[in-house]
């Protein structure tokens, strides 16, 4: 069973990857489970073995869409669902980042405390690079 100490040991062992990740993040982004040392506060926050094993993975907007954003933005943002289609959006990068950070009452949650600025920028880049299914 993994506990906080194991996670910290793993983080230490994977110092190179984590250092790179830490440089890219100016504050912990909870969307990335187990990758940062500051978040778990209590023993009950110990992570499953699988989480510890993947703790060193970099922030991946595709995963974020599969877990969270895709609930409303269908097909990874390529189609409208509960929320609008994001591929080809006419919003500016700044408008996209602002919406992700603050949300919109009754339509979109605010992610400003779950994602840091770099992670939000990565999500904006993901949206900008969306292509139709099958296109490269």
């Amino acid at each position, binding site marked *: 069973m993994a506990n906080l100490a194991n996670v910290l040991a793993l983080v230490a062992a994977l110092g190179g990857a984590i250092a790179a990740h830490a440089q890219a993040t100016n504050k912990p982004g909870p969307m*990335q489970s187990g990758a940062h040392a500051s*978040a778990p506060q209590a023993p009950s926050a110990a992570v499953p073995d*699988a989480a510890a094993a993947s703790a060193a993975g970099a922030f991946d907007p595709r*995963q974020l869409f*599969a*877990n969270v954003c895709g*609930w409303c933005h269908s*097909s990874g943002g390529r189609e409208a*669902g509960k929320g609008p289609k994001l591929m080809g959006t006419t919003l500016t990068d700044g408008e996209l980042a602002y919406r992700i950070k603050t949300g919109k009452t009754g339509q979109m949650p605010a992610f400003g405390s*779950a994602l840091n600025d770099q992670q939000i920028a990565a999500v904006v880049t993901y949206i900008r690079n969306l292509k139709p299914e099958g296109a490269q």
Partner: protein
Amino acid sequence: MKFRLSAMAVAAILAAGCGSLAADVTSDRLLKADSEPGNWMTYHGNYQSWHYSGLSEINAGNVKGLREAWSHVASRSVRGLQSYPLAVDGVLYYSGSYNQVWALDGATGEVLWQYKQKLNEDLVAKQTHSPYNRGIAIGYGNIYMGTLDGKLAAIDMKTGKLVWETKLVNSEKLTVGFTGAPLLVKDKVIIGAQGGEWPDRGPIFGVDAKTGKQLWRFYTAGGEENNGDARNTWLNNSWRTGGGGGWMPGGYDAETNTVWWGTANPAPLYDWSGPDYKTKGARPGDNLYTTSVILLDPDSGKLKGYHQELPHDAWDFDSATGEFVMIERDGKKYTVHPSKSGFVWVYDRNAKVQNVWRLIKNINFVQDIKPDGTLVGRRDMTEGKHKSLCPFIAGGMSWNMGSYNPKTGMLYKVGNEWCMDLEIKKTTPILEPMAQLNIGADFNIINPPDGKARGHVSARDPITGAMKWEIQFPEPPLASLLSTGGNLLFVPDARGWLRAYDATSGSELWNHNNGQGHNGGIISYQAKGKQYVAVMTGWGGLAGDDYAEFFKGTFAQMPKDSGIIKVFALP
């Protein structure tokens, strides 16, 4: 205000001709709810989840004269009114978005009081399944409501003032709070947290109805140490990723002193394990007690029994929809439980499966479920793209309630015919604060193989599933149903039409356009000796949010921040 209250109370007593009706709502009174057809005192109408009113002043012979008596506009109705009104002794109580509650004169709609819960609004702004509330409970002079930020609140039903509040869930850390209605059982209030898509483990709580003291807790994902500990059904400690919320109120069988509660799916919703789900994937094992029916002792919270309807649910087909229709036939007692999967389970009172029948046509997540509850031909998906999984994630049935009518012996229920394409992704387990959803796939809604996406309301034998009649709707209605002693079935639909049908034949007798979609409850009650029908209006729930893009038409313009309770009576 005081004058109004006392005048109304006197009127209610005079109308009923019985002073005892002014007494507190207690569990004993709820046990005999059928003897008070003028009141609707608990979410499901009675402990048996009938959603039936014995009133017959409005009936199949005169319903064509039904007209709007009064309405009340709920402020801040983001995502519409999704709750169930309650009516006791001539007063109608209902909750709305952001944990607001109103008490209204049941005959006139005059506001007696309103209550606005002080919420952590920063937290609410971060929640996905928010800010709606789906219902309240009444007992011991209080209105009970679970809050978006994880509290159970008791509000004085005469004054609308907060009596006590108890923090039950660390919502600031876990995202989830309460949206479902509580259930009063004896001197306890039982309530389940949101769950399924988040890293919490779906706790259900028992709270002292008078003092607000938390008495017990039961974790539906993995159980509790020394009480249904099931963590060995989640390999690699994956029980910590959670799920399993009991997000709708269940039922109560007083004869065996057993609370029946349904639980949600495990997290992540979609697993890449494929057929090797017992040993591989995100959460190897059966994942007890998710997507299950659990039987709890209301006094201790001890697990008395369970049946897992979908072992290792890999499709988000919750059993949490809260409807446990308890009926008796030929001397045998049954509990009938519809689920999001599109199947209806029939149990004896010990949760032993007696039959399973299908309400909808388009099901392919399994080939079949046998009458003994065994799943046949599971569609366990691996990482990658999958076409036409049926039903759609919103379910073959959603959380809107059906209605059982003891006079016709029929169960009336909404079914949804729709499917989805999806791409399952291998994701990192999510455990930390404000981690939001844990889905594990990209997906989109599609038409089913047999035609256009649609809904239907059918009249069924609750034990065998035999269909007496069925009415088609161009989009699945997402509101609850009401049947009455006047041989009526009321169906509030998605476009905004409220329709009344002959409960025996299914022929339409009356309709009225309420101006916006329905996504909440409907009741009938009596005030000053007269029968009323009250229905929630307002659009923008989690299932309905797909309608604007998919069904288009009127849904493209329908507001998602409007809520009005509409009340009807004969002239």
